[in-house]
């Protein structure tokens, strides 16, 4: 299904969870935060929260900064 992932159009598995998405991208869940349609999804929900067609997903982490 089509979603927007970090501002770019992306094709991901139908009705997968956030955990599925992070696994497929080889992103560890401990160090990121995930927002779906502007709502933050708590880490405890990653295995439960199912993504839908057209979702706007943001996956962020810490980088160097002052």
């Amino acid at each position, binding site marked *: 299904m089509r979603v927007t*992932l*970090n*501002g*770019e159009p*992306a094709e991901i598995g139908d009705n997968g969870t956030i955990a599925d998405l992070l696994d497929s*991208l*080889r*992103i560890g869940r401990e*160090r*990121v*935060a*995930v*927002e779906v349609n*502007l709502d*933050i999804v*708590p*880490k405890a929900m990653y295995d439960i929260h199912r993504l839908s067609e057209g979702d706007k997903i*943001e*996956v*962020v*982490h*810490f*980088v*160097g*900064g*002052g």
Partner: protein
Amino acid sequence: MPLESDKLIIAGREFNSRLMVGTGKYASFQQMAQALEISGAEIITVAVRRVNISDRSKESLLDYIDPKRYTLLPNTAGCYTADDAVRTCRLAREAGLSDFVKLEVLGDEKTLFPDNEELLKAAKILVKEGFTVLPYTSDDVIMCRKLEDIGCAAVMPLGAPIGSGLGIRNPYNIRIILETVKVPVIVDAGVGSASDTAIAMELGCDGVLMNTAIAGAQDPIAMAEAMKLAIIAGRLSYKAGRIPRKLYANASSPIEGLLA
């Protein structure tokens, strides 16, 4: 007061080091890790950005920073509205599981001066949501008082524009801020050298936060050590109480017993 018992306390948390260091602009993660180590800093700032989805080969900042050893202070760098800053802080809390945030809301790309109106708006929301807010602000006494009044855990006036290395441009304002607020006053941005840092500490500031001064130095590791020592020297000098400035000389050797 011995230095060991002279701890920096922010929102009830104690820190031995009064130096806070950023993690941007280093030549490599290895160099950054070395600089952090030698600086003795316990609070280090990080930025919140999108994960690079297309290239997962790059190393991650947190491979080089032990979050158990350092208190991560996520910033809202690059945010120009209260809404964006609040959103970034919420994401930072989820990513780092800490309430500490360095709140900055910028007003202008050229100067990177804070938009104090938006800053205050964002700070109010974040304090209500339980964040420990450390706001980067202009060296404005009234603004600092307002930030304290709404519940910020510290105020962080700039010494000079971010990355400028111009030093403490208005020491008199910093002094009045120190006399006005009770929360820790941390100079954030503008220092370029160890002497700038010592000046901030001699004014009585509770700490100094810097990134470019260290990361941009020709030898960042050496500058990190210089800044650590400057913080200590400046703090001790402040505590010791300097002599008054006088226009004319005052001899250090006795007049009596001079050879005739």
